[in-house]
């Protein structure tokens, strides 16, 4: 898929996803060792984006499974299509077939509804399987994932074991909302994505908001970086920095001052209590020249 880490970095950059050397190393390892990649980190640092960029960079199809509480194997792996089976039985009612023949008829792949994971394993083209927010699913579901993630296979009682045609590049993301099982974690290569450094965020802004001037982008990034160090409920994510940069550009602001920050702060901070806390302190939080 990728011959070297440098190639991976370059290809992701071509798809507008910039990564640091250590992140590239971990992703490269996951590909090379054919292990799932578990990405953890605060909300909005680009965990899901990473999977999307990987799919784009390798020209593979992205299969996404969004986890939530109550997600079960019928929605994630496969399900038998009861209605269709029933219909089939009714049609064949008059043909006087034995039970064995009838059974063989209705438990075939034709009646199998493929859900994302089975879809990923059976795919003939290369795929990236994204299992988003694993920490939102429940403990039982984690156990289902174990067989898939370590051996890339699913056992369906009526059909037998289905092995992956080619090992899909699997990305799991987690917001660290709750602790989940060690067994699952041990099967993965770990990546902790943190907020980007000043230089990296500046590059991202330049890439995503073309036409922004140097001074403004530096000022706004250093302000956002400082906000993240404050004790607030929801620190601004990269997406919010980009939104803010776009808004400032639309307002044709060329440099930021206390007034403009005050009137646009709600783009960066989403909780009223955070805004209340930061608003009076804006003048002293602004970068000096």
């Amino acid at each position, binding site marked *: 898929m990728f011959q070297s*880490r440098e190639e991976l970095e370059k290809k992701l950059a071509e798809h507008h996803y910039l990564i640091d*050397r*250590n992140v590239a*190393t*971990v992703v*490269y*390892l996951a590909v*090379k*060792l054919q*292990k799932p990649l578990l990405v*953890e980190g605060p909300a909005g640092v680009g965990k899901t984006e990473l999977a999307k960029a990987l799919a784009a960079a390798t020209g593979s199809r992205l299969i996404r499974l969004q986890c939530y*509480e*109550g997600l079960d194997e019928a929605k994630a792996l496969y399900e038998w299509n*009861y*209605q269709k089976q*029933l219909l089939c039985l009714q049609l064949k009612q008059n043909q006087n077939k034995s039970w064995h023949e009838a059974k063989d008829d209705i438990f075939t792949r034709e009646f199998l509804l493929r859900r994302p994971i089975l879809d990923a394993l059976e795919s003939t083209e290369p795929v990236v399987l994204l299992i988003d927010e694993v920490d939102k699913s*429940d*403990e*039982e579901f984690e156990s289902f994932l174990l067989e898939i993630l370590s051996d890339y296979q699913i056992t369906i009682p009526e059909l037998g074991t289905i092995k992956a045609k080619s090992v899909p590049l699997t990305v799991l993301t987690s917001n*660290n*909302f*709750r*602790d*989940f099982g*060690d067994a699952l*974690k*041990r*099967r*993965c*290569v*770990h*990546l*902790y994505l943190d907020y980007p450094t000043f230089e990296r965020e500046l590059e991202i802004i330049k890439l995503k908001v073309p036409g922004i001037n140097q001074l403004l982008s530096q000022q706004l990034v*250093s302000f956002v970086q*400082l906000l993240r*160090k404050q004790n607030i409920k929801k620190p601004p994510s990269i997406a919010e920095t980009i939104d803010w940069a776009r808004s400032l550009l639309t307002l044709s602001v060329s440099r930021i001052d206390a007034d403009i920050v005050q009137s646009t702060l709600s783009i960066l901070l989403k909780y009223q209590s955070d805004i209340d806390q930061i608003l009076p*302190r804006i003048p*002293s*939080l*602004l*970068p*000096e020249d």
Partner: protein
Amino acid sequence: MLFLEEKILEFARLLRKGGVNVSVTQVIAAIQAAAAVGLAKEDFYTALLSTLIVDQMDQPLFDKLFRLYFFSLESSVFEKHTDHNEQETDGATAALQLVDSIEGTGMGRGAGATPYLLLVKAVRETNYPLLRKLGKMGIESLGDLEQGAVAEIDKLVDQAKVAIGWYQAVNTLEKIRVQEKVSEIRYCKWLDCLSFLEKYMESLLEDLLVRKFGSMILEEIALAANIREKEFFRLDQLEIQEIRKQITKMARKLASRYARRYRRAKHGKIDLRRTIKNAMINGGTPIRLKYRRRVISKPELVLLCDVSGSVAVFSEFMLQLVYTIQNRFSHIRSFLFVNTVDEVTEYFTNNSIEEALDKAFAKARYAMSPFSDYGRVFRQFEKEYLPTFSPQSTLIILGDARNNYRHDERDSLQRIGEQVRKILWFNPQPQEEWNTEDSIIGIYAPYCRQVFECRNLKQLEEVTEAIL
């Protein structure tokens, strides 16, 4: 290659000493990963980190052991040259900067005599080479170190701080901040400098010890850094914050397990209405049976927390844990005491947990002297609050039962025990010390359903999993 494999194995063993759970599969993955990325320092580090560490909480320990094991240890031929280089360039710039600073403006006079002015200067200018130089000065001032020093690293770092005038410098900086109305953005940079220097001195000291005494010391450092098994009252501020995060995650795990049990059951009584409704899809044949939810009893919980001295941290953790999963209980009431007891339930109703804890500790009247008096508290508790509890409630007492040689009032506890469903006692004191000195847990134990030793995060996790 064999050499590298051995190194990684030994390193994994060291991590286990520090309380990190490393499996054999992970070690194999680490070896494969190291082979795949090569031995450049940064890549090698990333390879091991991404395969051996599964919990963010363990990363600081990993960083420390990685540095000490692969770079400081005498027997580690592996990357010695890199380390050497780093030191050389380091030293060179620092020396240069120092010359600069002495020749430079302003600070020249008196700078040699009082390092604290140098420190102030370094912080104000965010001059990292100078900070490093000062850090080295501080550590050198400690003189010759004994092997036992490893147990007192914190104390030694503090001594080194005093030697370079740390506290004077911090005071001066605070004054400057007020006088010159320093902006927050700059002040943040100052704080970064100070915390960098603190960490730098600690790492210098550890390096020094490991170089001098070898791998023995390394094991001790790993053991000392194991925050899962560290007694609650030994934790420093950073570790307390780390554990708070951990407790929140732990609580959510418990809560989600509960949610699962509350969902539609897979067995039990058949829910006829839903079964028939669902059968309509299949032309009236009930292919799938639907079951009714099980009703789960929600107990009422009463927490009685000793918040004197060494027990306070533990009580705080427990309150945080319980209020994070409050939907698990029909009602929680909480009380704080030292030698008098006060209810703090109201603070938790409309506040975030952190705010509630702050307010409860600041406003509640739980101490008239700093010495706990269990007897007096039980008597008061029985008189003022006991009649308001339902017989279904569970009372959890958090405390070390060290009564400062006062009257025990066991009858009072007995009467409390008869009024509630059960009493559980969580004791943060090590079990070896129970019933020694002024600890009288043995006298109270017969009136409790169970008494648990709960002195570190690991035990807290075990106990709550078993109870809640």
